[in-house]
Structure formats: structure tokens, C-alpha cells
């Protein structure tokens, strides 16, 4: 059984700024890994490097035993097995909700329109969006848009789901509806890597917490240990600031 995700020696710089300074990470099947750390610690960049939307400088990324960073590999083929949901939703504004969800299954997986729409309708129904299928994204609330973005990623039946601070752009009262979707996916056994500032959520849902600090993984362990007795001074300081801000 190969791991859904294996990252080794990942380096990434933007100009002179080195954002990721050698990341090693392995995620087992059904595991939910929460990436925590201050803004600018490299959480988002790490997620964007895993599916190579952001080209990397050095290192290897292996998804379900296939190395996406290998020379000559068809990146598009491996990417379709990785779902990613962004902070700012990035729905396609010129398409209805249904077309947003069915675009990739139809064009990438070559599903027929009816097949893709049936599957999409089932997913939308499951997440309480059935009555929104013909609406355009700008008619939806932020929470609804983000749930559509999650459904759009799920429609490709990914082996691995990456979530990049998916509640950071939402009004506080809309956060719960999105987090509940993720809880449901975790209960179903979806393998996920989640960058988040919601520490309470991370503590509930994560099987592992990974603390990123200045482009390095500083601490990695079960949530009970990381939140109760962090080993590193930097982790303790970070959690202290979070507690002072009233977020934990």
C-alpha cells in the first residue's frame, strides 16, 4: 500500500525569498493532516507545490506511488487525482453551479453530460446545494460558494484533497457550514491536508498536526500532544498568540 502523499526535500523560492526550506512529509490513507503556522510560514505555498500549480525548485512529490515531479511525467494526469480548494473559492463566474462542477468530469474524464450531471446533482444534494445548481456563483453566499468549490473538487473523485485556508475569506457565521462539510468528508475517510487558522477545528478533526515555521516543519504529532505539550519554543509562542487572540 503506497501512501497517498509523500514529499521529500521540497524547496521553493520566490526570487530571493526562500519560502520552503526542505519539507519532508508523508500522509497515510484516511489521514487528516492539519498544517498550522503563522502567515508567511509556507502553508499555502506547500499545498500549491504539491500539485505543481506552483513549480518547485528542488525535491520530490509522490502521489499514490506516482512521482509528479519526475521528468517527462504527464502532470495533468496526476493532478486530476488531487483535489484542491482555495481560500478565494475561484469558481468560474461565467458558468452555472452545475457547469462548474461538471466541467472537469466531462472534459478531463470524458464523462457524458448526463452521467456527469447525475453525479454532480447527487453531490450537490448531499451538501445542501441541490436548489442552487442552476444559479451563477455571484448569486451565492460565500459559504455556499465555498461548498460548491468543495463539490467541484470532489466530482473528480480525488485520492487526496488539499484545503488552503478555505474559511479565511468567509464571514464568521458562514464558517461552520463549510467546516461541517469537511468533518463529514473526514468521517468518510477522505485523505486530506488542510492549511488552517481554525485551531479548534484542527484539534477536533486532525489525526496529525504539522507546525510550519519559516519554511520548515518544526513539529509533527497528534493534536492532543501538540496543543497540550508542544516541544518547541516557537510552537508554544505561536499557540500562545492564538490563545491570546481568543481563537483556541
Amino acid at each position, binding site marked *: 500500500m503506497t501512501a497517498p502523499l509523500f514529499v521529500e526535500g521540497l524547496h521553493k523560492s520566490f526570487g530571493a525569498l526562500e519560502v520552503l526550506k526542505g519539507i519532508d512529509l508523508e500522509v497515510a490513507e484516511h489521514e487528516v493532516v492539519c498544517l498550522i503556522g503563522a502567515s508567511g510560514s509556507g502553508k499555502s505555498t506547500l499545498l500549491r507545490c504539491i500539485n505543481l500549480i506552483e513549480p518547485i525548485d528542488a525535491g520530490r512529490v509522490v502521489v499514490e506511488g506516482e512521482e509528479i515531479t519526475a521528468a517527462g511525467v504527464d502532470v495533468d*494526469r496526476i493532478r486530476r487525482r488531487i*483535489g484542491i480548494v*482555495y481560500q*478565494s473559492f*475561484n469558481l*468560474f463566474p461565467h458558468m452555472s453551479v452545475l457547469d462548474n462542477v461538471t466541467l472537469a468530469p466531462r*472534459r478531463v474524464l470524458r464523462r457524458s453530460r448526463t452521467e456527469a450531471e447525475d453525479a454532480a446533482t447527487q453531490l450537490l444534494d448531499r451538501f445542501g446545494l441541490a436548489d442552487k445548481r442552476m444559479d451563477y456563483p*455571484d448569486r451565492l453566499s460565500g459559504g455556499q460558494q465555498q461548498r460548491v468549490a468543495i463539490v467541484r473538487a470532489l466530482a*473528480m473523485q480525488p485520492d487526496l484533497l488539499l484545503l488552503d485556508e478555505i474559511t479565511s475569506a468567509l464571514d464568521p457565521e458562514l464558517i461552520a457550514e463549510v467546516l461541517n462539510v469537511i468533518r463529514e468528508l473526514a468521517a468518510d475517510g477522505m485523505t486530506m491536508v488542510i492549511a488552517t487558522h481554525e485551531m479548534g477545528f484542527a484539534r477536533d478533526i486532525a489525526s496529525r498536526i504539522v507546525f510550519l515555521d519559516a519554511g520548515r516543519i518544526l513539529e509533527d504529532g497528534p493534536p492532543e500532544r501538540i496543543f497540550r505539550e508542544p516541544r518547541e519554543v516557537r510552537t508554544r509562542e505561536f499557540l500562545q498568540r492564538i490563545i491570546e487572540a481568543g481563537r483556541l
Partner: protein
Amino acid sequence: MIDEPPRASREPVLRVGGSGRRAVAIALVSTAVIFGLIGWVVVNSPGWDQVQRSFLDWDNFVESAPRIIARFEVNVRLFLIAEVLILVFGLVLAVLRGLPGPVLYPIRLLATVWVDIFRALPGVLVIYVLGFGIPGLRIPGVPNDPFFWGVVALTLVYSAYVSEVYRAGIESVHPSQAAAARSLGLTQVQALRFVVLPQAVRRVIPPLLNDFIGLQKDTVLVSFIGVVEIFRQSQIRSSATFNFTPYLVTALVFLLITIPLARITDWLVARERDKRYATAVGASAAGSRRGRLWGGGAR
């Protein structure tokens, strides 16, 4: 989708300034005074009688109009054929210029040089060179029809402009859209075709219409290589009658065709701007997205 707020202040097409009935009255009076003054100067100028006879001859007008207007059909054909070719060819050029990667550098370079050359050359020169030069080579099988070369020349010149309009549209679509499409496993070409281009083209429809107003007028340039269209026909009539009134007919035809198109373009621009503004502000502002076709009037 986070949209940027409108850049300029939201002004109607024409505005009177100030408010209420008093402003309208002042606007009317000052307009009457200014135009009355200009009219008085023209009518009392020393050469007015001569000008009136050679430009505003009613009998000549009535007699010339039908023949001249009939020739407008040639301009319409030039315009319609060239427009379709320009829309396709301009898009191809824009997409070629946006191709990524060092391998495709020669293609990008060619497309860029192409656009630079045809934007730099006066349209009438391109028409001359193609219309007289290529038939002059007498290559077997190559057409020597001036209409054909007129369409080719207009297409070359205008597709260079239109490709720039398309390119601005493509660049206005936020990169996160293409990233979202690629993340779902779509190829670069699929992301362009299904996600980026549909949004880009929608945004550039008003500036495209603007270029087509220019194209409509520039169809008269094709008369220089011997196509008898509306302008050439009025020249012929003018020489035959020793009178300039036929040109007035042509001028009126263009005014009648072009001004409504310009109004529709402005209205589309206003509507697009209102729509983006409404999206930026939120659904609550969506109720007030009415474009103004004619503008003017006190607010």
C-alpha cells in the same frame, strides 16, 4: 470571485451638470446661443453663397442619393466579410502571443512583429501595396480582384488592433481562474478554451465594437484601388455634376449608420461597468444596473 471596483467615476454619456429644471434651461439657452452664433458667422461669411451652391444643392441631392446609397451595399459586404475574418484572425494572433514556454518563442516573436507592423502602417498604404502590388506580379491563380485585396488589407490591419483588444481581455482574467482549471486536471488549452477565453471575450465586446466603427468608415479606403463603393460613386457623381453635394449624401449615410452603433457601444460599456460594480458591491446593488442609451437630462 472578488472583482475590482470601477476605476472611473460613474458618469452618464452626456451630462448637463448641476441639477433640476434650472440647469436644463441654462443648458438649452447656452446651446442655442453658441450654435446660433456659429451659424450666423457661417451664413454671413463672404464665400457662403458659393459654398451653399456647391455643397447644398437640393436638386443634386435628390438625384444623386439613390445611386450613391445603392453603392453602400459594397461597403456593407466589405465590412461584413472583413469583420468575421478579423474576429477569428485577431483571436488567433492574441492566443499565439500568449503561448508560454521558451520553445514557442519564435511563434510569439512572429505574432508580435506581425501586430507591430500592421499597427504601424497606415491602412491606405497596405491597401495600395496589396491591391496594386500583388495583381501586378501576375502570378497564375492569384486573384486580381480589388475587392478581394481590399478585404485582405482591412483584415490584416484591423486584426492587429483587435488582437490587442483580445489580449487585454485575456490578461484581465485573474490567473487564479486558470490555476483553478489546471488544478482540476484541465490542460493548458482546455483551461484557455473553457475558462479564460469565455470570460475574456465577454469583457472586450464593447472595445471590439469600437474598432468596428472604425472599420466601417475605413471601408471607403478600398475605393483607392478601384472598388466602386459609396465614396467612389459620390466622387463620380461629383465630377459629373461639378458639385460637391454627393459627398454630403455619403456623409449622411455614415452618420446614420455609425452614430447608433456608437450609442449602443457606450450603452454596453455602461452596462458592463454597472454589472461589475454590482458584483463588487454585492447582490444588493444589482437592482440599479440600468445602462443609459442616450444619457443627458438632469439627474
